[in-house]
């Protein structure tokens, strides 16, 4: 990615029409973190055409790539799109220039979590954080415990309550977590890599 221009330190410019201020280092950061050649995108829009969740996005996947090229950091990191992406990889396998767009979405989520920018989707990062806490403390996901923790953070206790009860009756809900003995190892992994808090 050596030919990626402009270099860090180049002053950003204000984009007309509410696009925000450009951050010239942003494209380089995303390219480095993902290992993907963002500049190969020629805006054929195949990624967006095949995306099953495009209808729920505020910026389409091809537009995300363009905005990253322009350095519109804030606009991209505060979008719904980066959280709505379901990581189905349809875009990645159809890109004629072999850009792994799903991987870029992952990288944008990682950067967003460390950026201090308020996520446009409130509940999705909360869910991920509760999910990882559950692994950290119990080693495995105990679904009932996970749901309870998530609901206590989002304060939406009634959602899916009736469905949950039906699943209990079908024996699909494990009431107590399994015992596990890898605690020290798991805590070591988390202390080495935990970010996004």
């Amino acid at each position, binding site marked *: 990615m050596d030919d990626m221009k402009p270099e860090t330190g180049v002053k950003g410019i204000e984009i007309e029409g509410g696009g925000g201020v450009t951050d010239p280092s942003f494209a380089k950061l995303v390219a480095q973190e993902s290992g993907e050649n963002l500049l190969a995108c020629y805006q054929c829009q195949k990624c967006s055409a095949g995306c099953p969740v495009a209808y729920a996005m505020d910026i389409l996947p091809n537009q995300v790539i363009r905005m990253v090229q322009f350095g519109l950091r804030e606009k991209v990191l505060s979008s719904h799109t980066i959280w709505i992406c*379901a990581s189905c990889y349809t875009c990645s396998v159809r890109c004629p220039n072999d850009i792994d767009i799903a991987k870029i979405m992952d990288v944008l989520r990682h950067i967003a979590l460390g950026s201090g920018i308020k996520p446009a989707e409130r509940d999705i990062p909360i869910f991920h954080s509760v999910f990882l806490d559950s692994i950290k403390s119990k*080693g495995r996901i105990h*679904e009932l415990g996970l749901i309870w923790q998530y609901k206590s953070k989002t304060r939406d206790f009634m959602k899916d309550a009736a469905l949950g009860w039906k*699943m209990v009756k*079908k024996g699909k809900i494990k009431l107590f977590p399994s015992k596990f003995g890898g605690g020290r190892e798991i805590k070591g992994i988390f202390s080495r890599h935990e970010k996004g808090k």
Partner: protein
Amino acid sequence: MKELSYYPGCSLEGTAREYGESLRGVCEMLEVNLHELEDWTCCGASSAHCTDEALAIELAARNLALAEKGGRELLVPCVACYSRFKVAEEEIRERPEKWETSYQAKILIHYALDFFCEDSLLEAVGEKVVVPLSGLKVACYYGCLSVRPPGITGVKSYEDPDHMDRLMSTLGAEPLPWSYKTDCCGASLVMTRTDIVRRLSHRLLEMAKEAEADCLVTGCTMCQSNLDTRQEEISKEFGHRYDIPIFYFTELMGLAMGHRDVKKWLGRHLTDPLRLLSEKGLMK
């Protein structure tokens, strides 16, 4: 007797319990002996790879190291776990110096569906069929991660796969051509943006219905759960009544091979599959 290490994954202890039960059931019938990894932990799932790549790799690698120590090939029923394992395998094989793990990417990792679709296993399954699933029209639903990305899954025809279709033909069922084999159901967005899951799952049910399928078959715990447990809500929201059973492929294998516990597995579904099977004369 084939000996394999086995990583069940978290959902097989809960919402996908019948997948675990039926997988163990058919493995027993096919003389595949499963050794569950001791002290396995969560693969990290979507939440780890959405949060931090290194965390995702190491949570997966911990389990792969356990399996490698056991020396046997590893069988993974949950395709989401499988995908995380394959990503970790590739990363550690290419950049071993970067990772603090004893895992050396030396054991074979099998996704359960791919495992049973290998020619030798298909043949063994065919020989055990005692109740051919004649007249059962199935839409094979592969979902995302069992085929994509192909560099990870090794599936060549990732836009129009047919390995599960071959397994279903072996069981005597009739797999139908349809266009939504590999479309996403919304997966882990089910807890946070249930509206998206309902919309995507509705489309899948509608397309299966249009193809005149009696049921869908899958090997993904999230696909099965989203399509099975949300069908009533979807029917209400979109104003069409859906009553389409969503099977795990292992359940239909067990049914065709005459496993004694099939009723128990199917009794855990929220969209009742027993009525369909008795109408087709496949179950008393």
